[in-house]
């Protein structure tokens, strides 16, 4: 079938169970300039072209700096200062001149001049490696200006654009107008990359980690991006387009749901930014099962004060006057740059000082301020507040955290400030927490299983590393059994138990999770309707039997076979 031959399909990792059809807009293509044509190079002309491009880049950077300072904040604009200095760097300047004198066109000379410093930073640890991204940014800006390629403004894309990019950083996605973008696909990234999580939180169809093949897709091409199958289909048939458009329809259910035999399951959403709150509500979430508070602390020069935090928490509570909002206390470590915290450059930040460890040790003041804001919000806000602690690995840590809560309550008492102690819980993210689950559950109101980290730590498979993506599967027998143990420990100690990882949002696994005994499931807002629909079709007895069979399986493949029956 010759028609089929022309219909190429590229495969990556689906990020969202939605599909869409749209027109390709390339955002950040890694500078692929082809071979230089050295015969027509006039060094003085090329040097002048470079100077002009540099002048134009400087003007752009200054304008962006201004705009960001106004729209977002002075601290967020800092990165442009660094870029301006990289632009002026004498090392780059001399690299470009020597390239041009060796008959390279200016854009090739720029590419070559940046190659060494990028590699040098790339090989360093932690946040030094991020400087490589800064340099790439500056390099690509110059090359874009030199080659006269169109500049893509992510905030002003044509309707129905499918954005293709090497990768999308938080600052890229912050600019994206979700009302206009049909979806996106990236060369790099896995299911838990920033781009994928962003796509899910906004219900945007997306496929990540397609690889270099993506470069072959041309600007302006019509494609179907299918986040369900993980495919990007080039030149799709009419039927395929219609089918893709149909999955865009979301069936929103606004009421809480129960299984077919009447067991209530709370279906909540994970939230990382206040901007998501309305969308989460519109998707029919009963509440927030994981309210990440890092947004309050990142990208600024000093920590938010108590009142700013109080406002953020009460706003979330007001969005769900009849529901529950579970706030996770600050979960930060050496992998995220926070200028006002003395975050160590750690060889392995995921096994370092992060989460509750920092709150109890280096950031005690920050922790107390956050707890003060939370206890005040618990008394004043609509809706029901709950608070949970991240990365608890020992009972001692939990005891210390609970003691701090007590001390903060006492303080507020003494100051005559209205407050209430909310429901308290522990995130179960490590094998150590699983083994300590009975003692942890005894001390709190609830446990919440963070499957992304629990899978990473149980399987020793790093998040974001595509090479071990297959191991990072929460349906691996070891992870399933850890989850079972946690659920049982919670219930035996009169605590309720929820799940707030990616796994909770997979409607194909809802029966398994209900069968294991979960009371609450929290997920990206986009999957809430599908999971609610799944819950309503489940009989708890069948689900329990289904879970037992999955737990008996010895291999990941056997688990999947059981789940598909």
């Amino acid at each position, binding site marked *: 079938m010759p028609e089929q031959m022309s219909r190429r399909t590229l495969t990556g990792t689906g990020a969202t169970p939605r599909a869409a059809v749209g027109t390709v807009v390339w955002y950040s293509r890694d500078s692929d300039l082809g071979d230089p044509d050295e015969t027509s190079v006039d060094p003085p002309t090329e040097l002048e072209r470079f100077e002009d491009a540099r002048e134009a880049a400087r003007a752009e950077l200054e304008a962006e700096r201004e705009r960001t300072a106004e729209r977002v904040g*002075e601290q967020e604009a*800092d990165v442009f*200062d*660094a870029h301006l*200095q990289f632009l*002026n*760097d004498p*090392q780059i300047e001399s690299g470009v001149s020597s390239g041009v004198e060796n008959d390279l066109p200016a854009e090739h000379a720029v590419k070559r001049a940046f190659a060494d410093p990028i590699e040098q930073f790339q090989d*360093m640890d932690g946040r030094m490696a991020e*400087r490589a991204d800064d340099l790439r940014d500056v390099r690509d800006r110059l090359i874009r200006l030199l080659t006269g390629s169109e500049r893509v403004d992510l905030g002003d894309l044509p309707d129905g654009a499918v954005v293709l990019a090497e990768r999308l950083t938080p600052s890229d996605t912050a600019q994206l107008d979700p009302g206009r973008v049909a979806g996106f696909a990236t060369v790099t990234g896995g299911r838990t990359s920033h781009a994928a999580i962003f796509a899910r939180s906004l219900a945007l169809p997306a496929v990540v980690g397609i690889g270099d093949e993506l470069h072959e897709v041309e600007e302006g091409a019509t494609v179907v991006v299918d986040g369900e199958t993980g495919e990007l289909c080039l030149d799709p048939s009419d039927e395929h387009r219609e089918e893709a458009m149909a999955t865009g329809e979301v069936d929103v259910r606004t009421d809480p749901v129960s299984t077919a035999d009447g067991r209530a399951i709370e279906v909540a959403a994970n939230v990382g930014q206040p901007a998501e709150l309305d969308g989460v509500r519109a998707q029919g979430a009963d509440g927030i099962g994981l309210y990440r508070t890092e947004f309050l602390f990142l990208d600024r020069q000093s920590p938010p004060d108590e009142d700013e935090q109080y406002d953020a928490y009460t706003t979330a509570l007001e969005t769900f006057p009849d529901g529950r909002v579970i706030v996770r206390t600050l979960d930060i470590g050496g992998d995220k740059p926070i200028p006002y915290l003395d975050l160590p450059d750690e060889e392995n930040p995921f096994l370092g000082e992060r989460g509750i460890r920092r709150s109890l040790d280096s950031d005690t003041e920050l922790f107390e301020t956050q707890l003060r804001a939370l206890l005040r919000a618990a008394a004043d806000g609509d809706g029901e507040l709950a608070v949970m602690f991240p990365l608890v690995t020992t009972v001692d840590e939990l005891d210390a955290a609970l003691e701090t809560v007590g001390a903060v309550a006492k303080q507020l008492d003494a100051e005559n400030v209205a407050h209430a102690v909310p429901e308290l819980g522990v995130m179960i993210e490590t094998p150590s927490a699983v083994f300590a689950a009975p003692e942890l559950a005894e001390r709190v109101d609830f446990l919440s299983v963070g499957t992304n980290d629990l899978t990473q730590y149980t399987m020793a498979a790093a998040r974001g590393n595509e090479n071990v993506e297959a191991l990072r599967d929460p349906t691996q027998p070891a992870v399933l059994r850890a989850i079972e143990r946690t659920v049982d420990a919670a219930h035996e100690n009169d605590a309720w138990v929820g799940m707030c990882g990616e796994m909770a949002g997979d409607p194909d696994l809802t029966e398994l999770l209900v069968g294991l005994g979960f009371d609450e499931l929290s997920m990206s807002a986009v999957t809430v309707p599908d999971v609610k629909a799944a819950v309503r079709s489940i009989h708890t007895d069948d689900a329990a039997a289904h879970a037992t069979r999955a737990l008996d399986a010895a291999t990941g493949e056997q688990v999947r076979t059981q789940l598909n029956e």
Partner: protein
Amino acid sequence: MSSELERVVTVVPEAGLHARPAATFVETVTDADSDVQIAHATDDDDDLTPAASMIAVTSLGVEHGEEIRIVADGPDAAATLDALERVLTTPEDELGGENATATDADATTDTNA
């Protein structure tokens, strides 16, 4: 007459010699008439690197609390060292925004004097 001067300074900004403090540092060097080189305080002369290069300065990986050695050579060497010391000993939150304007302006005047 050689006018080479040097000074050892402890880096105060929380961010170390990265991002904004590094950018301000390099800008101050660029504005000066002296040649400026820096290194970790414990390094040899061989390790001195040009301070007018953001790449070179950032790649030193200088963190908050570390000492660096600054060598300035030129007509305004002393003033340049003063200005650079001020950049390195000003906490970051005073470097940016309106609070910083006075400090930055002073530094620039000194340097050009």
